[in-house]
């Protein structure tokens, strides 16, 4: 049997790691000629690190569940194999292959027309809200805020103070690294913006009116309307407040649907991320990627695994288990899935929002470039900078990080 490894991070809990190992065991028993070893590799960042180490060490895994935003860099560094040949061997074109997946996912999967990442589990930001608090504040839970203005208005009603102390917040969202970039770009997109050049890895649009509007919103939520706590909060703080019934609305990933469902004791619902100009959110989550340096058999076996993992059945199963939505459109054709959506209308909302989703950060030096923005947004949230200045600085820092690439590519004719 061909022995290959699957590297997988576990973005939620230990149970998922177990489930992943169960899935692989099932795959192995269904494919006697392939032996997949599932390798838990920590967080997305550590998975990235470990994958690079494995590639350098000459023992790459045949498939990695990689944060979608990292893949472009593997392409730039020439460390990843496109799936095109393997797809062609099945008699399909890349476009035909990708057709099974939601259109919103194509942006991160296809690079220069080649399939580098097969979407595995995906998410978008989502607005969660507490029904009881809505009712207490005289808001209609059936009509959640759809625009920024409504959101601010609702948030003000949802915020309760006792002297200096806030007992209940109107809005919270995770603002730690990674999450913050994702949410900021969601707000930017809702403001009609486009935060990176999807066709060129050396360009981001930070110092723009749409981004400024998004930042102003965040700034005002904290300092003008005081409906959101100052500083940086991680997902734990946000969910703790939400579970404690002391938070009106929160932005959190669709990937957390199961988690919230299991732990929230009060009625809650979800809605689209409020818009200013349009409804739009970025895709998040991970794709399956195939590093360079594998034998032909391993590639084939890896692709077999990838196809199996993204098949409608497995995709649907994993979606129901985790809360991520299934990237394979056909997963939703099954009866099981239909029943599930009826039972869980929140999952349906998430799916509906997918129609408005766009692709997720992918540039040269992705993490650094993203952090350049995040550091500045955090400064705004901490009251250290005003939004306009923050964006200028973020743009400058990002440009500096991408300069080597820009000089070697877009500006190269000068040399």
């Amino acid at each position, binding site marked *: 049997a061909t022995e290959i490894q699957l590297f997988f991070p576990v973005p*939620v809990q230990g149970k998922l*790691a*177990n489930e992943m190992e169960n899935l692989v065991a099932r795959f192995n028993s269904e494919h006697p000629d392939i032996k997949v070893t599932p390798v838990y590799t920590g967080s997305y960042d550590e998975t990235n690190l470990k994958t690079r180490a494995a590639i*350098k*060490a000459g*023992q790459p895994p045949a498939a990695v569940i990689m944060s979608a935003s990292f893949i472009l860099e593997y392409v730039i560094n020439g460390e990843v194999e496109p799936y095109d040949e393997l797809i062609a061997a099945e008699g399909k074109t890349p476009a035909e292959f990708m057709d099974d997946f939601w259109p919103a996912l194509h942006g991160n999967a296809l690079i220069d027309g080649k399939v580098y990442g097969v979407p595995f589990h995906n998410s978008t930001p989502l607005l969660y809200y507490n029904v009881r608090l809505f009712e207490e504040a005289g808001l209609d839970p059936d009509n959640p805020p759809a625009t920024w203005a409504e959101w601010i208005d609702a948030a003000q009603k949802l915020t309760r103070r006792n002297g200096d102390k806030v007992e209940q917040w109107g809005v919270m969202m995770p603002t730690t690294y990674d999450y913050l970039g994702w949410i900021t770009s969601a707000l930017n997109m809702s403001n009609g913006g486009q935060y990176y050049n999807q066709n060129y890895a050396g360009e981001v649009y930070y110092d723009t009116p749409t981004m400024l509007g998004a930042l102003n919103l965040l700034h005002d939520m904290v300092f003008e309307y005081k409906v959101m706590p100052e500083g940086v909060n991680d997902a*734990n703080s946000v969910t703790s407040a939400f579970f404690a019934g002391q938070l009106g609305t929160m932005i959190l990933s669709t990937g957390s649907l199961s988690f919230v469902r299991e732990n929230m004791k009060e009625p809650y619902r979800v809605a689209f991320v409020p818009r200013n100009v349009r409804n739009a959110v970025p895709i998040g989550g991970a794709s399956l990627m195939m590093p360079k340096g594998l034998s032909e058999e391993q590639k084939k076996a890896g692709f077999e695994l990838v196809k199996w993992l993204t098949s409608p059945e497995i995709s649907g199963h994993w979606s129901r288990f985790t809360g991520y939505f299934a990237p394979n459109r056909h997963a939703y054709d099954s009866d099981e899935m239909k029943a599930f959506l009826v039972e869980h209308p929140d999952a349906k909302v998430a799916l509906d929002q997918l129609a408005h989703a766009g692709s997720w950060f992918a540039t040269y030096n992705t993490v650094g470039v993203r952090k350049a923005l995040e550091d500045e947004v955090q400064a705004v949230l901490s009251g250290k900078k005003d939004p306009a200045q923050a964006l200028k600085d973020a743009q400058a820092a990002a440009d500096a990080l991408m300069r080597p690439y820009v000089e070697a590519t877009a500006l190269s004719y000068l040399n």
Partner: protein
Amino acid sequence: MTASRSGSPRLAATILLVAVAVIWVTPFAWMLIASLRPDAAGGADIASLIPSAQSGFGNFVDAWQSGNFPLWYLNTAILCAGVLAVQLVTITCAGYAFARLEFPGRQAFFYLFLMQLMLVPPILIVPNLITLSKFGLYDTLVGVMAPYFASAFGVFLMRQTFRTIPRDFEEAARVDGASRAQIICRILVPLARPGFIAFAIVSVTAHWNEFLWPLMVTSSPSNRVLTVGLASFTRSAESGSQWGLIAAGTLLVAAPLLIAFVLFQRRFVSSFVFTGIK
């Protein structure tokens, strides 16, 4: 009668120490209580130190079932024992050389050794992984151990310990006709036992608790160690944490060391006393 000496200042100091100790132990107390509390994912009173009425071992059961704890314990034990076993040989030899032999360049060699203290694996991950895979040690427990087989800290500790042993013993042994190897094995090593114990504590604690390096070197589930296993409970990317589960998992991982320490606390402390660190 004893009042003036052990009076108020001493009492005040004791009270202060106890107060600080309470602060020190609170996280553990919380961890214990939270691990017994069902549904501890969040909520207003998650921080309460008052055990919940429906305490139970549900989180431990969940944690235990979420991973292959027996295997992880075994691997971690092998890792610690393996590292320690080889270290004991290397640090004995080198510690003896630095403590007892006068050779040209001794000081230079010693500083060369001490460099290791500063060059921790996070700095050297990539080159070390390449080296390991050249030796076919990538994704093996031996690969996790190998960079630690030499220990500057251990050499330093043993040098200090050997130095506290009067030379008389070695000279008596030489007169008795013992060879250098016999002197080291039969005289110095037994006499330096407290030093070895102290080093063993440091070494085992470090490797039992290490995370990043074993995560990088091993891939196969069969080579997974406790911390890497634990990480699957404690890490979260897109949502909140299951505190009860985390607490239970952490306790499972730390339990062997904690228990060993509580049982042998006096011996541990006194072995540090005799290492010649002063």
